[in-house]
């Protein structure tokens, strides 16, 4: 009997673990180590952050789902990987620390035959003074990255709405809290959901709403922008994004590295090297992401973290990390199998794998401060990678170590994204987009880098309906209810 251990029960890890358990049956063991008792459909946190959903609507208990699937579940966080075992045993293992009530802090070693690292991001609030500290979110801004953060964000939003109702103008500042952030899409959704809610509350005229981000142009979204077919033209996402901002009367600051947050004020540096300040009454700034800080230790007890992980804490996989300057980047730099090059029974998927380089062109200010989005790994690619990696591991277990690995390169896959711009059965809107491929391939698709037959976007009520249906569909799938394997990632 072989044992697969999956670290992280989020979008990617949950997909990997549940498919592996389905495919392997009871002949082999699947173990999940994840610190939260609940699974969270993160995209709907945006609606929690504006009071349109509750934490209960976007989360559910993991234990009964894993019990049903025959998956062994540890509510714990992984601390370190020992891929060569230790002095007394050759068997690789992970060290975990329980986060379960009553057992919190207890350390345990779990041996594995195969390990999938799907630990997602560490929300690195500490990277920007005032945005937060090593323990998490600071007191001046809010976040929608977790369901609890989003609940808090909504409480602050309601306070701001009450103030406006009493005649006090409020300034909203939404965007990214550092020059190296990703996840602009979440901030984009939040700013337009706030705008929509303020209109509904009848206080839109009392609010000034501003965007601040590290993108060099509006609509970059960390993927270097995209061109979409519209009215016979291939139109840049810059035009679409600017149009929506103009229509909703939202001003913007771009190319910004937020370097300090104080009560009611952010300080930032722009790509041209100039420094600025922006005041706010309410602010949601996405933190930069890093790896969760797993350590790797060899048989002799030496720290080999730098061999297994990139400096940003994400795990090295089969990517080309030596591509160098932007001019040399190729679609083939992107990993296909997500297998660690040193330890072949180690895989990383979702946000946890180390990308070879950004997708957007790297830029820095004349002061040398890097200001450019880091590459997003959104829900659909994270799910597809998780499934492909699970497939590979299942084949290695059942067909032997020479079984070919399954591939899921972001340079060969598309992504469907639905960005909410306001919730409401008849008044809601969302930008429904597809992008193909996620990583532009300028050799295959000269000019835009993407196939414009499969890259499109439009905003409207239909997009909102799709977003709402996806909310229920993905929670259904994650709960392993009837037909879950038929729902695509």
């Amino acid at each position, binding site marked *: 009997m072989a044992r697969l251990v999956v670290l992280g029960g989020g979008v990617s890890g949950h997909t990997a673990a549940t498919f592996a358990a389905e495919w392997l049956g009871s002949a082999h063991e699947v173990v999940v180590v994840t610190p939260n008792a609940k699974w969270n459909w993160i995209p709907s946190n945006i609606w929690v952050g504006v009071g349109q959903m509750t934490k209960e609507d976007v989360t559910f208990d993991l234990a009964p789902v894993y019990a049903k699937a025959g998956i062994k579940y540890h509510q714990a966080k992984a601390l370190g990987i020992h891929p060569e075992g230790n002095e007394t045993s050759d068997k690789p293992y992970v060290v975990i620390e329980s986060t379960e009530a009553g057992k919190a802090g207890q350390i345990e070693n779990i041996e594995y035959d195969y390990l999938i690292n799907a630990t997602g991001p560490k929300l690195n609030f500490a990277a920007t003074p005032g945005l937060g500290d090593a323990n998490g979110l600071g007191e001046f801004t809010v976040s929608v990255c977790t369901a609890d953060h989003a609940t808090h964000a909504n409480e602050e939003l309601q306070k701001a709405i009450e103030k406006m109702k009493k005649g006090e103008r409020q300034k909203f500042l939404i965007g990214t809290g550092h020059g190296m952030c990703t996840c602009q899409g979440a901030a984009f959704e939040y700013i337009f959901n706030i705008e929509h809610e303020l209109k509904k509350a009848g206080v839109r005229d009392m609010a000034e709403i501003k965007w601040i981000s590290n993108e060099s142009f509006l609509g970059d979204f960390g993927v270097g922008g995209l061109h979409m077919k519209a009215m016979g033209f291939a139109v840049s996402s810059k035009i679409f994004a600017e*149009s929506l901002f*103009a229509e909703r009367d939202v*001003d913007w600051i771009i190319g910004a590295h937020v370097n300090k947050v104080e009560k009611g004020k952010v300080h930032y540096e722009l790509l041209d090297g100039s420094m600025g300040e922006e005041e706010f009454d309410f602010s949601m700034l996405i933190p930069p992401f890093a790896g969760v800080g797993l350590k790797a230790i060899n048989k002799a007890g030496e720290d080999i973290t730098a061999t297994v992980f990139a400096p940003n804490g994400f795990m090295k996989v089969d990517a080309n990390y030596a591509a160098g300057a932007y001019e040399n980047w190729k679609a083939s730099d992107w990993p296909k199998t997500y297998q660690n090059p040193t330890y072949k029974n180690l895989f990383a998927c979702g946000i946890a794998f180390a990308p070879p380089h950004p997708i957007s062109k790297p830029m820095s200010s004349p002061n040398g401060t890097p200001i450019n989005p880091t590459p997003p790994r959104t829900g659909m690619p994270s799910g597809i990678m998780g499934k492909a990696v699970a497939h590979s591991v299942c084949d290695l277990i059942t067909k032997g170590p020479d079984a070919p690995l399954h591939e899921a390169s972001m340079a060969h896959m598309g992504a469907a994204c639905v960005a909410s711009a306001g919730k409401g059965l*008849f*008044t809601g*809107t969302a930008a429904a987009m*597809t992008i193909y491929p996620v990583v532009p391939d300028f050799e295959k698709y000269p000019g835009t880098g993407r196939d414009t037959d*499969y890259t499109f976007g439009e905003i409207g009520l*239909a997009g909102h309906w799709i977003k709402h249906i996806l909310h229920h569909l993905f929670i259904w799938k994650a709960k392993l209810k009837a037909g879950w394997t038929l729902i*695509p990632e």
Partner: protein
Amino acid sequence: MSKYGEKNIRAYGNNFTTMTPGPVAKFLRTCVIFQAIRFVIINIKMLVVVSKSH
């Protein structure tokens, strides 16, 4: 409604060079019949991309 988005444009401001939707485009965004048709079309387009990606 007719000049819906245009009033927000500021001469030589950030948003001076973009496009804004006119009344028809704006109406169609939440027109239930039109959006029901778009719903079907968008779903088909997304399923094509999803199937190309697996």
